[in-house]
């Protein structure tokens, strides 16, 4: 277990000054995270602010309310939450309710920030989900950080002392792996097996062996659930769009290296979120992202934006500047909201080299179970590495295309598919840069790596337990 709890700051987003064009979008949106900053909310403050969780009317009522609210999962898949709750409530056995805070996505910090600052909201949400599905057993699946673990243990004990919780809450540790938070990997871990994804030909709740079904909900989804139970569907829909209602937590990576977790309404323009200004032509000799030039921002000129995470897609900055943070706009372009990562790649970096770094990480994070994945992803990462290096490989792009086709859809989980999507988007958006690399040149001018990656790679099976 690591001792450090590195949270990006400041929290929440710096509240813009009145008159600032961003104020209208950010104004009043402090549902999950308090306006007072990164100070953890204790039980007293939590109850003062939100009031007590209302007595449940009956499981059917809350599920209907969640359906009316249109809450979708905030873990990346954006699956309608009411359907999962209904499936769990109508199942043959009462499920174990698991709050998923594993956050294997390196560029995302929203889940551990939420757990650190507003754990009571998450725990309230666990209780709501447990009551709605007739469960008396819940747990939080959290990363191995001593401070976070300690705090959550105290919080759970505090709540137990005043008898707030009807369902018993346990704390379980997630291994430090990209795939540790995958639903079936989580279920495996609960059954005391390594956190490896399973092959699931039939859709439905994952099970811990022949044992109980597990209702997995991202911790942010649970926090929203806790608020819907108090304030109702209408309140929830006051933010966001008609098709994608509510607010969400996003992890921002600005071009100057500043990182923060912010709460925003779904559908907020990316330009506003990233502080974009006007367009800027590419300097001569620079390839950049997307070919339409750069976009200025308060943090520096930006060539491309990564929306969603390492399984989503790059977008050229000029295109991103015209888009809202909403799946309706992102999906047709190959991207999606995912884990809420929004990263603005500075103009001075090499997009191919950045992608090659992440691709290597993704390849090494393969569970090693499915042939197409543990063969294809490393080969793609190696080819990208050659493309990014000084020894250009004329076959790299053709190989990458072929492997992308061989790898997609042939694993037990979506790791190969997501990685291929990410790599494919880079080859499209940074096509001009790739062309330069094939001729042995690179137009990046800043050697600092931009996208975050954890150190260390898996060595043996114990790293998955």
């Amino acid at each position: 277990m690591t001792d450090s709890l590195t949270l990006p700051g400041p929290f929440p987003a710096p509240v813009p000054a009145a008159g600032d064009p961003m104020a209208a979008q950010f104004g009043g949106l402090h549902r999950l995270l308090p306006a007072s900053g990164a100070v953890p909310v204790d039980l007293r403050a939590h109850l003062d602010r939100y009031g007590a969780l209302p007595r449940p009317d009956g499981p059917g009522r809350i599920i209907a309310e969640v359906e009316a609210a249109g809450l979708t999962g905030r873990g990346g898949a954006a699956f309608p939450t009411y359907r999962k709750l209904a499936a769990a409530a109508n199942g043959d056995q009462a499920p174990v309710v698991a709050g998923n805070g594993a956050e294997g996505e390196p560029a995302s910090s929203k889940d551990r920030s939420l757990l650190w600052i507003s754990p009571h909201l998450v725990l309230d949400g666990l209780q709501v989900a447990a009551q709605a599905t007739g469960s008396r057993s819940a747990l939080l699946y959290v990363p191995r950080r001593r401070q976070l673990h300690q705090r959550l243990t105290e919080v759970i004990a505090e709540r137990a002392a005043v008898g707030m919780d009807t369902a018993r809450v346990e704390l379980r540790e997630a291994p430090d792996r990209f795939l540790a938070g995958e639903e079936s990997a989580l279920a495996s871990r609960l059954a005391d097996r390594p956190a490896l994804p399973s092959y699931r030909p039939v859709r439905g709740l994952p099970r811990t062996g022949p044992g109980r079904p597990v209702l997995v909900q991202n911790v942010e989804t649970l926090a929203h659930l806790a608020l819907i139970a108090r304030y109702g569907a209408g309140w929830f829909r006051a933010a966001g769009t008609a098709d994608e209602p509510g607010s969400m937590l996003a992890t921002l990576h600005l071009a100057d290296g500043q990182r923060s977790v912010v709460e925003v309404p779904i559908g907020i323009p990316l330009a506003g979120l990233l502080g974009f200004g006007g367009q800027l032509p590419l300097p001569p000799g620079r390839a950049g992202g997307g070919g339409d030039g750069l976009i200025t921002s308060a943090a520096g000129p930006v060539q491309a934006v990564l929306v969603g995470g390492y399984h989503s897609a790059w977008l050229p900055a000029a295109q991103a500047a015209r888009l809202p943070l909403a799946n309706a706009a992102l999906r047709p372009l190959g991207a999606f909201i995912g884990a809420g990562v929004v990263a603005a790649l500075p103009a001075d970096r090499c997009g191919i080299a950045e992608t090659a770094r992440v691709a290597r990480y993704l390849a090494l994070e393969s569970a090693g179970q499915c042939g197409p994945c543990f063969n294809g992803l490393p080969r793609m990462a190696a080819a990208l590495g050659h493309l990014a290096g000084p020894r250009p490989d004329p076959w790299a792009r053709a190989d990458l295309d072929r492997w992308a086709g061989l790898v997609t859809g042939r694993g037990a989980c979506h790791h190969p598919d997501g990685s291929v999507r990410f790599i494919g988007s880079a080859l499209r958006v940074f096509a001009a840069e790739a062309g330069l690399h094939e001729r042995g040149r690179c137009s990046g001018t800043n050697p600092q790596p931009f996208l975050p990656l954890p150190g260390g790679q898996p060595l043996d099976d114990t790293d998955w337990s």
Partner: protein
Amino acid sequence: MGKQLRVDPTACAGHGLCAELAPELVSLDEWGYPIMPDRPVPRALERTARRAVTDCPALALALTRVP
């Protein structure tokens, strides 16, 4: 309706018998792992598919009913 030939990729070890027994249905990728047919198995090939399912040393194949 039809039957779909599916592989459990976590159980498959790339023995390759399926591609030998049912070449009209299964081919191997460049690493020796089987590529399943995306269409349901034609009735004439059902027996071949069934043989591949029972002979797989890793018990990784299944012939499932397609709704």
